[in-house]
């Protein structure tokens, strides 16, 4: 790279270079005069380098092609622009983009905190009922009435069990 360093936040040449160690990892930022001013780098009390670093690290260098979220239409270049994702499904679509960022961004790469157990149970219940209802429709369509009756009973059982569980 023979080019002079560009500012991490805009296309101007960088004249301010900062290095900081956070959680024993070295972070570097290069900024132009205007961005350094705007980000308050010159004001030691109001300035958080780590904040800035996080935002800078949101620009993934590797371009993993032009990915697009099927659910919400969000694209990888949208992410470069906004630093935010479009919907929860984006985390599956852009997994290859997110995973390398997590290591510098966080104190680990796997969640070890609170789990919304009830919400998860509810979701697996919805999914199961939805699958069974598909089976049921399929069975009726192909005139397998015994299968259909069994599936219908199973749906009722699953619903009953869930409602009892929720009532507890």
């Amino acid at each position, binding site marked *: 790279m023979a080019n002079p360093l560009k500012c991490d936040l805009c296309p101007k040449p960088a004249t301010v270079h900062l290095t900081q160690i956070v959680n024993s990892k070295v972070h570097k930022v290069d900024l132009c005069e205007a961005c350094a001013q705007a980000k308050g780098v010159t004001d030691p*009390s109001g300035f958080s380098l780590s*904040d800035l670093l996080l935002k800078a690290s949101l620009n993934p260098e590797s371009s993993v092609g032009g990915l697009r979220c099927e659910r919400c239409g969000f694209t990888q270049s949208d992410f470069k622009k906004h630093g935010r994702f479009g*919907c929860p499904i984006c985390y599956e679509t852009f997994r290859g983009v997110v995973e390398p960022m997590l290591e510098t961004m966080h*104190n680990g790469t*796997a969640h*070890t*905190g*609170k789990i919304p157990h009830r*919400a998860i149970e509810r*979701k697996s219940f919805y999914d199961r009922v939805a699958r069974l209802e598909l089976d049921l429709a399929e069975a009726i369509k192909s005139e397998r009435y015994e299968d259909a009756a069994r599936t219908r009973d199973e749906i009722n059982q699953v619903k009953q069990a869930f409602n009892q569980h929720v009532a507890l």
Partner: protein
Amino acid sequence: MTISSLIDTPSELTDSVSTKTAIVLMTRIRLARNLAGHAFPGWAKPAQRVESFALCRAAVAATPQMKRSVDVAIADITELERQILVERHLISRELSGAKAGAGVIISKDQAFSVMMNEEDHLRIQVLRAGFNLKRAWSSINDLDSALEDNLDFAFSPTLGYLTACPTNLGTGMRASAMMHLPALVISNQMEKIVRAVNQLGMVVRGLFGEGSDASGSIFQISNQTTLGESEAEIIKRLGSVLQSIVEHELNARGKLLEADASKLFDKVGRAFGILQNSHLLSSSEAMNLLSLIRLGVDLGSFPEARRAMIDRLFIEAQPGHLQHAQKGEFDPGQRDVIRATRLRSEFADFVRPDFDLKNKTKS
């Protein structure tokens, strides 16, 4: 309830007299949550925003914590009312500028507030006076669980709660403390502290969060990372950082008194004189003077019971609150006159400082 009723109702932040609030004014925890299957607010189309707002609003309003709450859409309140909510730390600056399909529900005691369609569908917040991380966590955890009964949160077993910005993944939790650190500022140690705190993975900000200045020597310290540690671990780590900052501040106060007590007393005494007699006070000067009076309370020059009044004035001397009290909009120059008038009257019958600290037992 209405926004203006918030100002006259006793609240967690403005009416605490406990000595526990001496250095840590308040503890705050917020959780970022999103609805599964809905686009994040920043990307959602207007109709989708309205839909997710309605879903969240109904669920939040139904929780026991939000009985008799203030429940407003941002579009339905005035610019001034929004500013008041920002000054009371009940909404963020970002939410105050939000488009349609955004709002906030605030509990009667103003301890809980839930912002809807800010950066995430839900930003659940709890405020507690003083150094109270564990109690704050247990109350916000209850509210979050109550919401979980009626809302399907976006969650991944490996990434945790899914948030619009990957910096909030995992717990989605930002725990913070608002600290009054005048001695560290006077003795020029803040830069060193900020650096050390950053290295421990914590962030230091000014009074009103990102990009705000630290007038009044008030700083917010919070965790930077949200993924890879449990809520309890983050809180424990933050708690020990806060504890050590408290010790540094106390040491710095001790050293200032030892090295040149008159210099410190001079600052407190002059601040008292200006507050009693000035006719023009900018917001930032007022904050710095109040900060010195507050330090005076901590040192024993003023009675302990006066600290709550200072903490209330920290908020009520802000532009939004001043204009609300005067029932009008004023330009910054006029506000400085109004602010000075208000503070002169507040300090007119304030006890004179007593700098003879030797007779007092050190607290």
